[in-house]
C-alpha cells in the first residue's frame, strides 16, 4: 500500500516536473509584428530618413555661413564655433535609421537574382550615406558599420577615410554597372519609382562627387573617377534629380524645426545675403524673407513679410543674443527678428523636398572637371552656366512661390560670365549657392575647394577654445557616446587621424 502510494506520488511529481515547460514556447510568439518584410519597403525608410536633420542646420549650414542663430543652448554649433559634443551632425540618425536599413535590404536581396536591381539600389544609397558621414567626421566605421545584428558587431572598428573612399567608389561603380535596365522594376521605390536609368545617373553623379572630393589628396584617382563617372552618365537634367519628397506625414526635419519651435531663431547670414545681393541673384528673393519691423516672433507675420531682394539684410556672423541687439540697431533694424530668414512659407515648408544630388551640382562639378582638363566634351563656361540655370529652374520644385522666371534667370546668366583666373572661385561659389540646404555637401565642397571666400566666424575669438582664431571648422567631432562605449576603436581612429577636434583636417582635406 505504502509502496503504491510512494510510487504514485513519485509519478505525479515526475509528471508535473516534465510538464512544466509545456506551452511556454507558444506563449513567446509575437503575433502582431512580422519577422520578414519586402526589402524595398526597408530601402524606402532609409531614403526618407536620409533627409538632413536639424543638427545639419546647427552645424553644416552655420559653418558655411548660410544660416545662423544668435541663440545658444541646443542651437550652439557653427554659429558659436562651438564643439557641442553631444550628438553632432548626422552620425546617430544615419547609422541607426539609414544604413541599418540599407544594410538589411542589401543582405535580404543579395542572393536573390530577381531582386538584383533592388540590391544595387541599396548599395548605391548606402554609399551615399557613408560618404556623407565620412565627409563630416573623417574616419568612421565602414566595413563593420551597421552590422550590429547581421554580424553581431556591437563595437565596430573605424576605417581610415583613405580606405573608405576607394570602397565607396568601387561600390558605386559596381552597382551602377550591375543595374539592369531590362530587369525587374522595383516600382514601390520611393526615390525613383524603380527607374533604373535614373538610379544609374544618381550612382554616377555620386561617383563624380566622390572623385572630385579627392582633388587635393589624390588628383590621379580623382581624375580617373570623374572621367569614369562622366562617361557612364551623370544627372544633367532636373528631371533626374535625386530628392526626398516630403509630405504632411513624412515632413522635412529642418522645415519642421523652422516652422515650429525655432521659427524665429534662424537667420540668413550677411555673407550669404550680400553675395546674392551684390550679384543681383534672383534666387535671393526666391529664398529670403524679411519681416520688416518685427521685434519678436509674434511680429513675423505674413503681412510684414517682404521678399524683395534689395530690402534683405543678413545677420552678421559671430553674434550671440547679447551682441546681436546693438548690431541690429547698427543695421537699422527693429530687432534681430528683423533680419532676413529663409522663407518658411516657401522654400522651407514642412513639406519641402530635400535635394541630395542635383543636376546643378553635377554640372558645376563638370565645369570644374572641364576647367581642370579632365573632361573634354563641353566647355567649362557651358557647364558653369548650365549649373546655375539648373538650380534656378529647380527652385520651383520647393514651391511655386520660389519659381524664378526664365527672363530673370537669363538676365543673371548673361551678367555672370565665367572669368579667367577666377574659375574655381566662381564655380564653387555657385556650388555653395546651389547646394543651399544640403548642409553636408556644401560643407564638404567648401573644405575641398576653399570657396567661396569667407571670413572665419569671429565668435569667441581670439581665444575660442574649440576653433583656432582665423580658421574654420574642418570637421565635426565624434559623438560622446562613441567615447563612452567604443573607446578602443575610437582612440585608434583618433591616433591615426589626429585629435578629435573641430579643427582637425580629414584625409581628403589635407
Amino acid at each position, binding site marked *: 500500500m505504502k509502496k503504491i502510494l510512494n510510487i504514485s506520488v513519485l509519478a505525479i511529481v515526475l509528471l508535473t516536473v516534465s510538464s512544466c515547460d509545456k506551452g*511556454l514556447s507558444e506563449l513567446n510568439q509575437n503575433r502582431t509584428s512580422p519577422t520578414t518584410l519586402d526589402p524595398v519597403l526597408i530601402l524606402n525608410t532609409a531614403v526618407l530618413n536620409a533627409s538632413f536633420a536639424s543638427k545639419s542646420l546647427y552645424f553644416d549650414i552655420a559653418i558655411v555661413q548660410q544660416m545662423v542663430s544668435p541663440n*545658444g543652448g541646443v542651437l550652439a554649433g557653427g554659429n558659436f564655433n562651438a564643439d557641442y559634443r553631444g550628438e553632432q551632425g548626422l552620425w546617430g540618425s544615419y547609422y*541607426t535609421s539609414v544604413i541599418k536599413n540599407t544594410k538589411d535590404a542589401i543582405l535580404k536581396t543579395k542572393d536573390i537574382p530577381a531582386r538584383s536591381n533592388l540590391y544595387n539600389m541599396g548599395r548605391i544609397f548606402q554609399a551615399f550615406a557613408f560618404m556623407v558621414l565620412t565627409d563630416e567626421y573623417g574616419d568612421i566605421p565602414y566595413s563593420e558599420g551597421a552590422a*550590429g*545584428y547581421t554580424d553581431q558587431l556591437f*563595437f565596430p572598428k573605424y576605417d581610415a577615410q583613405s580606405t573608405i573612399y576607394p570602397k565607396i567608389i568601387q561600390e558605386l561603380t559596381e552597382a551602377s554597372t550591375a543595374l539592369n535596365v531590362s530587369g525587374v522594376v522595383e516600382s514601390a521605390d520611393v526615390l525613383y519609382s524603380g527607374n533604373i536609368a535614373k538610379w544609374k545617373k544618381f550612382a554616377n553623379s555620386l561617383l563624380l562627387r566622390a572623385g572630385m572630393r579627392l582633388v587635393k589628396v589624390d588628383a590621379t584617382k580623382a581624375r580617373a573617377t570623374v572621367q569614369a563617372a562622366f562617361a557612364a552618365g551623370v544627372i544633367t537634367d532636373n528631371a533626374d534629380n535625386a530628392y526626398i519628397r516630403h509630405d504632411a*506625414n513624412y515632413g522635412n526635419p529642418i522645415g519642421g524645426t523652422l516652422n*515650429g519651435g525655432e521659427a*524665429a531663431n534662424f537667420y540668413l547670414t550677411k555673407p550669404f545675403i550680400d553675395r546674392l545681393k551684390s550679384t543681383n541673384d534672383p534666387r535671393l528673393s526666391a529664398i529670403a524673407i524679411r519681416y520688416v519691423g518685427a521685434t*519678436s516672433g509674434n511680429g513675423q507675420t505674413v503681412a510684414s513679410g517682404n521678399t524683395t531682394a534689395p530690402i534683405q539684410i543678413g545677420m552678421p556672423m559671430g553674434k550671440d543674443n547679447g551682441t546681436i541687439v546693438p548690431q541690429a540697431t547698427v543695421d537699422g533694424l527693429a530687432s534681430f527678428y528683423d533680419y532676413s530668414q529663409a522663407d518658411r512659407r516657401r522654400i522651407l515648408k514642412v513639406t519641402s523636398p530635400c535635394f541630395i544630388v542635383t543636376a546643378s551640382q553635377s554640372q558645376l562639378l563638370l565645369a570644374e572637371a572641364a576647367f581642370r582638363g579632365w573632361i573634354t566634351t563641353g566647355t567649362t563656361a557651358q557647364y558653369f552656366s548650365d549649373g546655375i540655370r539648373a538650380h534656378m529652374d529647380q527652385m520651383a520644385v520647393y514651391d511655386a512661390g520660389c519659381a524664378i522666371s526664365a527672363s530673370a534667370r537669363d538676365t543673371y546668366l548673361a551678367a555672370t560670365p565665367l572669368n579667367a583666373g577666377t574659375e574655381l572661385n566662381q564655380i564653387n561659389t555657385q556650388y555653395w549657392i546651389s547646394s543651399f540646404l544640403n548642409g553636408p555637401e556644401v560643407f564638404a565642397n567648401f573644405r575641398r575647394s576653399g570657396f567661396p571666400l569667407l571670413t572665419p566666424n569671429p565668435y569667441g575669438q581670439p581665444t575660442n577654445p574649440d576653433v583656432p582664431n582665423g580658421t574654420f571648422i574642418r570637421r565635426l567631432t565624434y559623438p560622446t557616446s562613441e567615447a563612452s562605449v567604443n573607446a578602443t576603436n575610437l582612440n585608434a581612429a583618433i591616433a591615426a587621424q589626429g585629435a578629435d577636434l573641430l579643427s582637425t583636417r580629414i584625409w581628403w582635406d589635407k
Partner: protein
Amino acid sequence: MRRIFFALSLLLFFTLQTFSQTLTGKVTDTDGKPITDVSVLKKGTRNGTYTNNAGDYSITGASNAVIVFTSVGFISQEIDVAGRSSLDVAMAVDNSNMSEVVVTALGIKKQSRGLGYSTTNVNTEQLSVNRTSNPINTLQGRVAGLNVSSLGTGPGGSSKIRIRGQSSINGQNSPLIVINGVPIDNTNFNGQTNGVKGGGVTSDGGDGLSSINPDDIESMSVLKGAPAAALYGSRAKDGVIMITTKTRAKGNGIGVSYNMNYTTDTPLDFTDYQKEYGQGENGVRPTAPNPTSGEWSFGEKISGGMTHTLFNTTGIPYVAQGSRIKEFYRTGKNFANTITLSSGSDKGGIYLSLAGVTNDGILSNNTFNRKGINLGFTQNISKKFSFQGNVNYTNEKNTNPPNIANQDNSIPTTLMALANTMPLSVLNNNKYDPATGNEYIFSRFRNRTNPYWVMAEQFQNIRRDRIFGNISAKYNILPWLYVQGRFGQDYSSRDEDVNNFPTGQASRAATIPGFVNGIFTQESRRFRETNMDFLVVANKNFKDFEVTLSGGGNKMERQLDINNVQVTDFVVRGLYTVQNGRAKDPVYSLIQQGVNSLYGSGEVSWKKTFYLNATVRNDWFSTLSPANRSILYPSVSGSYVFSEHLKSKWLNFGKLRLGYAEVGSDGDVTPFSDQLFYAVNANTINNPSGSAVSLGSINGSIVPNANLKPSRVSETELGLDLRMFNNRVNFDFAIYSKITNDQIVGVQISDASGFTNTRINSGKSSNNGFEVLLSLVPIKKKNFTWEFTANTAYNKTKVLSIITNKPGERITVGNHVFNGELRYVVGQEIGQIAGYGYATDAKNGNQRIFQANGLPLRTADLVLFGSALPKWTGGFLNSFNYKNVILSVFIDYKLGNKMLSGTNFNAIRHGLHMNTLEGRVGGVIGQGVNQSGTPNTVATPVQTYWEHLRTQQIIESVVYNGGYWKLRQISLGYDFTKLIPAKWPIKGIKLDLVANNVLMIKKWVDNIDPESFGFGSDNQAGLESAGMPTTRGVGLNLNVKF
C-alpha cells in the same frame, strides 16, 4: 447642544459609581520585583487605578469583580477577586510579540520567533490615518531599508519603492507586491518611462498600488532580503511587500465602521530667486511691445516705472512679482470615506467595504476619483475543509495629471523660469493670439508653453477598472497535513485619451492647408495576470523536534493587449477624435508570458531554540530559449534563540539569525526579445510616379539576444534581535551582502552598429548595508507613555561589472532633458551623475580656468559628480500617550545622494538664481586663473556668463547634495471610546489630526524641495527637472465603530 448632552452623560456616569469595599495588593514580576504603573481595572467598568512605585495598589468596590492587570511588556492577567480584600499578583514578562505571527512567502503564516531572516511588520493604522495620495508613501522612513519616493504628482500619482537599495543596472528594482498570497500588477505609468506615444505628455499616470484602500489592509509585512523572499524565486530579487486584507471581523459578531479622512494639500514654495533685477536681457527692460524676454530676468534694476507686456502695447508696472507657486496652484483637497461591514463567528466571517475617494489636485483642472468595493470572506465548511477569498474592485478616473519633468509643454518649467516681473495675470489674459486663436507666443522659447493655455487646451483622461482577488481552499487531510489550492487574478482595463499637442500650440509647425495641427492619442489596454498554485504542508513534532515540510507549484500567465491610435492634424478644430484626424497611426500589440514553478521547503526546529529552514524553487520561463528556460533557486536560513540559554534578568529575548539565498529576476527579459521584428508604417507616401508606397523598417533599436537568462541574486544576511528590560528596549539589527549576477544589461552599443543597445547577461553589482531598528519606551507612567522608535539603513550599491569588470567601464542609462546624464561605472557606486564641470588648473590649487574673454573653461570630458542614490535612509518616531491622547512626531531623512537640478540650471540661465546677482553691474569676474595661470581679471557681461554654462553644458554649479531632513508627520489623536455610554450604539470613536510634510529641517539644494523630482525611473535618478511643488497636507481622520 449635543455636545453638552454628551458631557452631562459623562458626568452622571462617573457620579453614579458605587463606592464600597477596598481591595489592596502588590504587583511584582516573577522575580518579586515591584512593577510600577500597572493598570488595575475592574473588568467591564471604567473603575481603575495604577500601582505606585512600590507596586502597591488600592481599588474600591471590587470585592466581587474580575480585576484586569495590564502593563506594557507583561502578560495581562484577569483574576476573579471572589470576596478577597487583598490580592498580590506576579506578572510574567510578555514574550508574546515573539510568538507574533507574520505572513511569509506564499502567504504561509509563521511565528516570527524562528525566522532566520528579516521581515518587518508595518503598522497598518498609520496607512489609514496618515493617508497619503498613494498608501505606500506613508511608509517613507518608517521601515529600515525601505526607501519610498513619490513624484509629488498628487492624487493618483505613482510611488517608487526600493528595498535595500537598487541592484539592477537596467532599472528593474521594484519589489513584488503580493496580496493575500497572490502577486498583483504594479505597473508604473510615470511620464518619462511609460509616456504616452507621440510625445508631449510626461504626466504621471499612476501605478498599481494606488488602487488599494488602506482601510482594507489587515497586515503588511516587508520581506526585505532574498532569504525571506526565496520562495518567490525569479520574482524575489527586490524583496516582497506582503499585504493581507481583511476577510472577517476581528472577533465574533457583527461590526460596522466608518472612516473619514479629509486633508488639504498646500503647495510649498522653496524658491529664493533674486528680485532686484527684472525682466529683460542684457540689462535692459522691455520698452517695446511684444517683447520676447518672458523667460529672462537679466533686465534692469527694479526701481519703479513701466515696462511692456509680452503680448501687446499695454504697459505694466516693472515690479517684482510674488510667489508663482502660491498664485498659480490651488490648495488640493482629499476626501476619503470608507464604510465597512464585517462579521465573524467560529465558522468564519465576511468583510465588506465600500470606499470613495475624491481628490482635487493642486493643479486646478486635475482631479482623481476612486470608488472601490472590497469583499473578503473566510469559512470553515467542516473541521477539515475551509476556504477563503477576497475580491477587490476599483474604478478610477484621473483627469489631467500634470506634465512634469520636461522643458517643453510643461507648466512647472515655465513657472519656475518665468521672468520675475511678469504678472501671471498677463499670461492668463493673453492665452490666445487674437489673430489666429493659437497660443500667443510669449517667449523666444516657444516650447515654454503658457501654463494657462495648457490648462485650457490640453486634456488627459485616464480611466481604470480593476478587479483583483483570489480564492483558496484548504483541506486538512490529517491533523498534521493539509493541502491548499489557490487561484488569483488581477485584471484591469485602462483607457486613456490625451491631446498630446493641442491645436495651435506655439511650438508646433502649421500643417498642410485644409487642416489644423495637433496630436491626439487614444489608448486602451487590458492586462490580465493569473496565478494558480497548490501547496502541501506537513507539520509534525518528534519529541523536541518540530518538522515542517511543504511543497507546491505555481502557474503564472500574463497577457497585455494594447490598442493605441494616434492621429495627427484635424479637419474640425477643437474636435479631438480619431475620426477627425488626418494622419492615423494605429498600433495593436499583444504581449504574453508565463512562468511555471515548483517549490518546496523544509524546516526543523529544536526546542524552539534552534531553527533551520531550507527552500528550493524551480522556474520555467516562456521568455527564454528552451535551453535556458529552467532555473533553480535555493535558500537556507537558520536562527538561534540564545536567550533560551543565556538567562538574564534584563534580556527577555535574544536571537541570532543567518540566511543565504539565491533568487532572480525575470523582469528584465521581456517577451519576444529573442527575435528581430519589422514594422510597417501606418501611412503611405507617394513615389515620383504618384503611387502610394509603404515604408517598413527594423523594429526598435535593440539587437535581440536569444540567449538571455534571468539575473541572479545571492544574498547573505546576518541578524540580531534583542528584547530587553521588560521589552522596553528592543533592538533589531540586520547586515547583508548581496551580489546580483548575470544582470541583463541594456548595453549601449556604438550606434555605428546600426543599433543603440543590446541586452546581455553580464552586469554584476553588489549591495552592502545594514539596518537598525531601535525602539524604546523611555517613560511609562500611569497616564503617560513615551515611545521612541528609530530606524536607520545604510546601503551602498557598487557596480562590479557591466560588460567586463574593467574599472571605469561605463554605460549611460539616462539623460537629463538638456544637460548631464546618469552613468553606471564599473568600480563606482551605482547611478553616477555625469556632466561637464569647470576645468581646473592642477598647478594653481585647482582653481577654475577662464578663457581670455572671461568665460569659464569646461572640463575636457564629462566628469562624475557622485551617486544619485541615498546611502542613508531612516526616521525617528516619537509617540506620546497621555491618557487618551496620542501625539506622534515623525522625522525622516535621506542622505548621501547627489542631484542635478534642472530647475536651478534654468534659474541660472534665465537670471533668477541668487548667484546671477553677481556682476549685474560691470560684469562677472570669475574667480580663478586664466589659461596662463595668472588670476582672471576679465569681466564678462552677466547674461553671457551664465548662459555660457548652458551652451557649454557645464552642470557643476547645479549638482547638489540631494539629501534632506524633514519633519514628515505630526499626528494628534484622541480616543473618545471611554467617554461613550455603554448604551450608545457607537462602540468607538477616534479622531486624529494629521499633518504631513510639515517642515523642511535641512536641505542642500537651492529653490526646490529635493523630493520634487520629475522622473520615476531609476535610470534617471537624481536628474531633477521641474516637477510639481511638494505639498503640506493637513487634515483629520475620523474613525467610528458601531
